[in-house]
Each structure stands twice: as C-alpha cells, then as structure tokens.
C-alpha cells in the first residue's frame, strides 16, 4: 500500500492503482471519456487531468500509476489536487477542444439525457465557443442492424474499438486516418459479427453509436426502470427493463460482477420488440379444426374437460422460458391428478434426479476467472452464452488453456480442438491425448459440459465419460472448495425445473415419450408450458393445451391456447446455470386478457376439483419455499463441491459413444425462443449473419 494525498486527504491505496482510481478512492470525482474500468487504458481524451505537485503540467490521471509519483523533498507522500483552479482551467480547455467539432444536435440525439459529454459540459463547458471555423463533417458508417452511427458526434475515445478487440474478441473496428480526420469504422464498412455489440452503444460516451432499433423511441426521463433478470439464456444476466406506458422499450445491463459484469448479449438487449409482436392476448379454442377466440371461462372449462376424465393419461411439459412458479403449480396439479407424466426437459436432457450438483455450473460463472485449464464438451459458448464466452476469452488472455470436444467453431479465442465426437473423451481418459497432461497439471481444471453433449441418444454414455474424466483428473475436489464440473444450460427454465423435480415420476413418461404416446393415443391430453422447440403431436391426436406468450409453434398446434405473461410482466423465480436463484420483476402488465401462468393453473385446478392451496403469489412462494428450501437463497450461487458419498464417475450410464459430432443445439443465436423469433430486430440480425458468415478472427 502506498500513501498519497488527494485534495488534502491522505489515503492508502495499492501502488498499482492509477491516479484516477486513487482519486476515486479518496472520494474525488474525475471526469473521463476514454477511460473505462474494464478496458485497456488509452489516455487520449485528456479529460481526467489532475494537478500533481511537482509536475510541470496537469497529468492525465488515468494513465499514471500511484507508484510512479515522486514523493516530497522530505519523503512526504505525493500530493494530487483535483479541484484546484489549474485543474479546472485545464479541463475547461479540453472540453472546449472537444466541443470544437462536436455538433450541437442534442435535441435530435438519442444520447440526450444520458450523455457523458452533455453532463460534463455542464460542469466544465464555457458559455460560448471561440472557434468560428466550420465543424468537421464525417460520413456515417454502416455497422450492422444494431448500431446506428452519427459520426459527427464521435470524440475518438476509442472505447468501441477497445471493446471489440479486447472483450468481444472480434477485431473489426478500427480508427482510420489521423488527427482531425480520424474516423471510427469497420473494415470496408462490414457489419460487426459480435454477439455483444450492443454494449458498444452503452460504452459510447456520446451519441456517435446509438441503438438502431431504439432510435428516436423515447427519452430516458420518460421511462420507468425495473431491475430484473434476463431469460434469453441460462446465465440470468441482471438487466434493467425500461418501459413507457406499459410498453417495454429497451433492456440495459445492470452490474453483477458474478454473472454478466456489465455486459449483456444482443439477444438479451434487442429481442424486446418481440414482446410486442405475435402476442397471445386472449384465450383461443380449436373448433372444427380452426382456432377461435374464447372467453377465459370457456377455455378453462374445455381444458378441465380434457384433463378431468383421463386420470393418469395426461402429461405436462415445461418449455425453455417457464418460471419456477408456473412449474410448481403445474407439478402440484398433476400430482393431484395422479399423473407422473411431467417433464421440464423438452430437449431430452439426461440430467435430473440425484444431487443438485450434477446439473449445476458448480465452479460458478466467476469461477472461470480462476480456472487454468478449461475443457469444453459439446458446447459453443459464443452462441449459447455470449457473456460467459467473453469471460472465457478473458481467462484465455490471462493464460488459461482451452480445449474443445465438439464441432469446431470460432469462439474468439484459441481453442485446441481435440475431436468432434465423444471418442476424444475416451482418448483423454486413456491418456492418449496430449491435452491430458494439461488437465493433470492444472491447479483449477474445469470441464464445461454443454447441451450438445447432453441431449443425444448416447448422452448417458457421454455423461459417464465426463464423470470419469472428472474423477480421473481430480477436476472436482483437487483443491478444497473447487468443483470444476460445470454444466452450461441453454434454457433459463431448465435448472429451475430440475431443482423442482419437474421430471417424470415413477413410471412416468419423458417429453419425447409423451409426444409419442399422444400420437399413439395412449395419452389423451398434453399440457405445454410454453413448449415451442420440439416436434409436437400430430394434429387431431388428443388435446394439446398451450400456456404461453407467443403465437409460435406450440400455439399453432394447440387445441386450447391460454395466454400467459412474459418474463417482463411478472415477478417470477428463475434459476441460472450456476444454481443462483433470481427473481424477475414486473415492468409491464400482461397483454390483453393474459394472466400470470401460475394463476391460470390455479384457476384450472378449481374447475378440476383439486383446488391448489394458494390464492396469491405470496402464498405460492410460501408453499414453494416450504417444499423446496433451495429456492429460499435468493441471489446466491452455491459454488459447492459434490455432496459426500456422491461418486462423480457414476454419472450417466455405461454405453457406447456414437461417432456423430457434438453440435450445439443452438443453431441460430438470434432465434432461440418465441420472443426472439417474434422480434423483427432478431430476424434482421439473423439474416445479416447468414449473408456474411463469421470469418475466422485472426489473432
């Protein structure tokens, strides 16, 4: 620790702190444009100038370290002033220079109201300009369907360039030209190929990069802000939903160091226009082969009629966006009906039952920062969880070795490709693969198992191989408190379903068997909680009841459609891939006659004569926590070792591995769920990506 005096207050800070960090630690506010905590230091905006005693000129505080400061003549700590007249004059000078070329178009700029330059011009701007010359004019650049550019406003802080190169790992942005003619551009104005590019809009301190889909939609002060959780992937990124008059207009990231830091993926950010399109806003029933509008009473009566006489011959499947509350209510209802046919794994995931640690990302997402050898099995984190992929990239930059078993893909970092099929796992086990020595020598090895390995016919055998790998290389338990066995889910609902025990009871059918049984006629009714991603029973076979938000595949097949609330329209529990229980908050009301999912089940239960014992959300929660204490620890990631007596090598089942390549189930990053598929922006992104497939990034 080093002592330094900031504005007369002596503080003790680590020597590697920059002056800017030290000043902030002392409580001084330093204006800045180019400096960002999570990016490399550029030092080119000069706004963070401070006065250092003994230095001939003001110094850029972001680019000088505390340890490099000279002590006073008698060994006194270095003295920094952030509020002296010199500093004020220097910053006013910098601001005046910045404003020479920055247009005065705040009234038509989308950044207005949340603009760093605007805010700091209030503090350091002069009343008028002394420059009579014309402002420079810069051609706007094309950067793809998500980023709108107004390059006249650019102040060349290069935050976007550094983000693309360092965090996103797609070195596609650059600064061409020099001096006054410097321009930010992509190579030949191609579209950016990052799944994280929306974050550049947040990073841009001015209105040069703004959100294209959100252009001219709203001013920040008109919006009602709701802090909630994302459900587009299984990370549960913390987000802020901005709504106006019951309409969700945009999604921004919230800082959550252990999950998403301050980034979110483009799907999280830009799929929200899907919340306005293709929505189910009233119940529908199928009469003579056609869906027609119906009242809640009629639709619920029909649903009750379909479920009542069947006894055990009914089933329920929960989809990728189902919240814990709706699954809990469904589970209680089907238990009351005496049906063991419930499944929260429409994709056929082999996990479920047994200790919770067998389906969690046990090391925690933040654990990636500590891992030094990472093996990816059947996963493409770049499209399954882009934010997590950025963390993997950081681990790689820090020196971690990453290898992959599965179809090759550009993950924005160097990956040792061990093979496409499960045979590589066997070779690793047998020590025939050089990479085995890496796993052996690693201090904190990690195996990330993706859905590409867990939803196949031979997944039980693959899981056994992974478990044996964990046991053989001490991936869990090598170091106290370290468990490197990590399952990366792709659906926000999945861990909640498994924690809840939303899996077939004794003698029950799983999702695929239920669909087959419907086709065969041995099951007469199927209850779908937003299931759109699987093949559904053929039309005319049994009654399909769909509870969901969008007119997607499930609703098209359904005989009874019950409109429900989307994730922005209810307070609901979701559990992320690391087992962190988080709650969404209501930012808008459900559309039209739609109701919260659990309330629909509750209303139906009454008509079936099995009234569920909760009348309010609070009562449901009480019941949920009483039955499943695991949901009580909100916002906490367990990061636990396997329970005593659990043998990781006994995961899955013995069997032969197929030679088919392990392929991620996410085929198109932008179109994975009904909300994203209803989104025009996501469709544009998908089309843009298809037109220009990802080039291998040269590192």
């Amino acid at each position, binding site marked *: 620790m080093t002592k330094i005096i900031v504005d007369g207050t002596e503080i003790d800070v680590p020597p590697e702190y920059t002056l800017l960090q030290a000043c902030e630690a002392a409580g001084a506010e330093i204006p800045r444009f180019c400096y960002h905590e999570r990016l490399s230091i550029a030092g080119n905006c000069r706004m963070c100038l401070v006065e250092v005693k003994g230095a001939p000129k003001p110094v850029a505080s972001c680019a000088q370290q505390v340890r490099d400061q000279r002590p006073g003549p008698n060994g006194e700590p270095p003295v920094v002033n952030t509020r002296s007249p010199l500093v004020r004059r220097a910053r006013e000078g910098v601001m005046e220079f910045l404003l020479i070329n920055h247009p005065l178009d705040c009234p038509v700029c989308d950044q207005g109201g949340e603009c760093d330059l605007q805010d700091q011009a209030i503090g350091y701007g002069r009343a008028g300009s002394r420059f009579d010359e014309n402002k420079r004019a810069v051609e706007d650049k094309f950067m793809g369907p998500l980023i709108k550019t107004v390059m006249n406003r650019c102040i060349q802080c290069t935050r976007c360039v550094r983000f693309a*190169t360092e965090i996103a790992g797609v*070195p*596609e*942005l*650059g*600064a*061409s*030209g*020099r*001096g006054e*003619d410097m*321009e930010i*551009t*992509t*190579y*030949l104005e191609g579209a950016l190929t990052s799944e994280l590019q929306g974050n550049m809009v947040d990073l841009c301190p001015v209105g040069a990069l703004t959100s294209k889909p959100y252009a001219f939609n709203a001013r920040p002060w008109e919006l009602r802000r709701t802090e909630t959780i994302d459900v587009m992937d299984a990370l549960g990124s913390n987000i802020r939903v901005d709504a106006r008059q019951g309409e969700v207009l945009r999604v921004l990231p919230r800082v959550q160091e252990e999950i998403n830091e301050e980034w979110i993926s483009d799907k999280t950010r830009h799929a929200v226009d899907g919340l306005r399109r293709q929505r189910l806003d009233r119940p529908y029933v199928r009469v003579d082969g056609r869906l027609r509008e119906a009242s809640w009473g009629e639709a619920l009566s029909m649903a009750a009629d379909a479920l009542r006489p069947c006894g055990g011959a009914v089933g329920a499947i929960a989809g990728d966006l189902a919240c814990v509350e709706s699954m809990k209510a469904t589970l209680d209802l089907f238990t009351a009906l005496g049906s063991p046919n419930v499944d929260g794994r429409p994709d056929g995931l082999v996990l479920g039952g047994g200790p919770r640690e067998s389906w969690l990302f046990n090391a925690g997402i933040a654990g990636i920062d500590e891992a030094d050898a990472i093996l990816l099995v059947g996963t493409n984190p770049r499209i399954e969880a882009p934010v997590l992929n950025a963390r993997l990239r950081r681990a790689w930059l820090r020196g971690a070795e990453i290898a992959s078993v599965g179809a090759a893909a550009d993950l924005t970092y160097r990956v040792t490709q061990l093979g496409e099929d499960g045979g590589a796992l066997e070779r690793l086990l047998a020590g025939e693969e050089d990479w085995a020595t890496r796993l052996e020598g690693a201090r904190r090895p990690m195996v990330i198992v993706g859905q590409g390995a867990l939803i196949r016919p031979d997944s039980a055998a693959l899981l056994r191989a992974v478990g044996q790998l964990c046991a053989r290389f001490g991936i869990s338990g090598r170091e106290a408190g370290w468990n490197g066995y990590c399952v990366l889910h792709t659906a926000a609902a999945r861990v909640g379903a498994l924690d809840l025990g939303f899996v077939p009871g004794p003698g029950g059918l799983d999702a695929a068997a239920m669909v087959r049984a419907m086709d065969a006629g041995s099951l007469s009714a199927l209850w779908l909680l937003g299931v759109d991603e699987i093949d559904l029973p053929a039309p005319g076979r049994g009654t399909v009841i769909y509870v969901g938000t969008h007119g997607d595949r499930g609703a098209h097949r359904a005989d009874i459609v019950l409109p429900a609330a989307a994730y922005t329209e209810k307070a609901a529990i979701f559990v992320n891939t690391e087992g962190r229980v988080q709650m969404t908050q209501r930012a808008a009301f459900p559309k039209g006659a739609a109701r919260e999912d659990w309330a629909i089940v509750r209303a139906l239960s009454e008509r079936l004569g099995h009234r569920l014992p909760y009348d309010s959300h609070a009562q449901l929660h009480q019941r949920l926590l009483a039955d499943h204490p695991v949901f009580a620890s909100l916002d906490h990631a367990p990061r636990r070792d396997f329970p005593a007596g659990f043998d990781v090598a006994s995961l899955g089942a013995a069997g032969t591995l197929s030679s088919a390549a392990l392929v991620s189930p996410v085929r198109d990053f932008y179109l994975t769920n009904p909300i994203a598929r209803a989104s025009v922006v996501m469709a544009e992104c998908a089309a843009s990506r298809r037109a220009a497939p990802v080039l291998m*990034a*040269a*590192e």
Partner: protein
Amino acid sequence: MSVRRLALNQPEGFAFSPASLETANWWLQKYPADRRQSAVIPLLWLVQKLEGWVSEPAIRVVAEMLGMPRIRVYEVATFYTMFHLQPVGRHHLQVCGTTPCMLRGANDLKAVCRRRIGAPFAVSADGLLSWEEVECLGACANAPVVAIRDLYHEDLTPQTFEARIDALLRGEDVQPGSAIGRQKSAPEGGPATLVDPALYDGSLAVPVTLPNRPQPQPQPAEA
C-alpha cells in the same frame, strides 16, 4: 491533409513477386514470430514499391501474412500519408508546399503541375505522371523541392521544373539534384562567408599556450 479512403476501383487481387516475397521474408525474419506485426510498414512499403500504390487486396494479403486483423493494416495504411491509396502515374511528383518552399515559389510549381498534369492525384492520360502536394521534405535550404520517384529535385523554377516534366514525357531520365548546380546545401552561387583565403593558409594563426599542458621539461645538458 484530408480524409483518406481506399480507391473506388480496386484490382482483383495482389501477389508479391518472387523477388519482393524474398524481401518480405527478410523483413519478417527481423522480428520474433509472435511480433510479426512489426513488419507491417515495411511490407506495405514493399507493396507500394511493387505496384505504386496500396490496394485493398494488398492490405488483405499483408494482413494474412502477418496474422493481423485486416482493420489493423487498414489503420496503418490510412494513417501514413506516404502510402498512396489510389493508383499514381509511373512518375509520381511530390511537390513540397511547406513554408520555406512556398516562400521560394512552390505555388508556381503547383500551378505548373495543375497545367501540365491536372488535379492532384489525377493520373495523366498516358499514365506517366501524377502529382500531389506534400508536407516538408526536409530540404528547405534548397527550396523549392520536388521529389520525383523519391529522388529530390531542388532549386526549381517553373521553367526548369517544366523542362524536367517534358523530359519525363519524352521518356528520358531526369537527373536529380539542384537545378542551379548548387553543391549539396551550400549557398547559392558559392560560399558567401569564410571566403578569405588567409583563413586557410595558416597566416592568421597565432601561437597559443594551451593551459594545463605538461610544461616542456628542461632539456638535460648534452653530454
């Protein structure tokens, strides 16, 4: 200086000639394998020597050779004004327009260029000539200066400059150097100071006693 962009019409591709590839590899070997990017400016310069300008396909080829993202090479090529981003004539004339040359008549030379060749960077119809105004060429003592294919032509007047253009158009070689026979950067018309011959024949020399020199020892009496 103005905004620099890649030319609208670009060739199909670019490939180093065998000889230039050898030079390129020589440059690459100067740097450790993981610091290959250091060779980006020499390689772009090689490209320019080969083709006269830096084309978009060439940027891609260089990026690939160095394992760099294309945008990084593009940044370098647009940053340095000595890289031409559009085709130039066989003889590219760089007219210095910075203050000393301007005071000594660079504006007249530019007028000659405009009259004989056309606008800056416009290639003459026969593909022989093009010109641009550049910043200080660093030969202010011999202003005004024009660099023709990187060789300096100094002390030009519109007449002597135009004579050189005529020679180039005839396909003749032009001799670089001063147009008025000045030796290097010596004063025009010969030396103007230190001209007294007496300075050089030793007649002005005054015996001096250097301080701190060992005093001559008294000679021992000859035996």
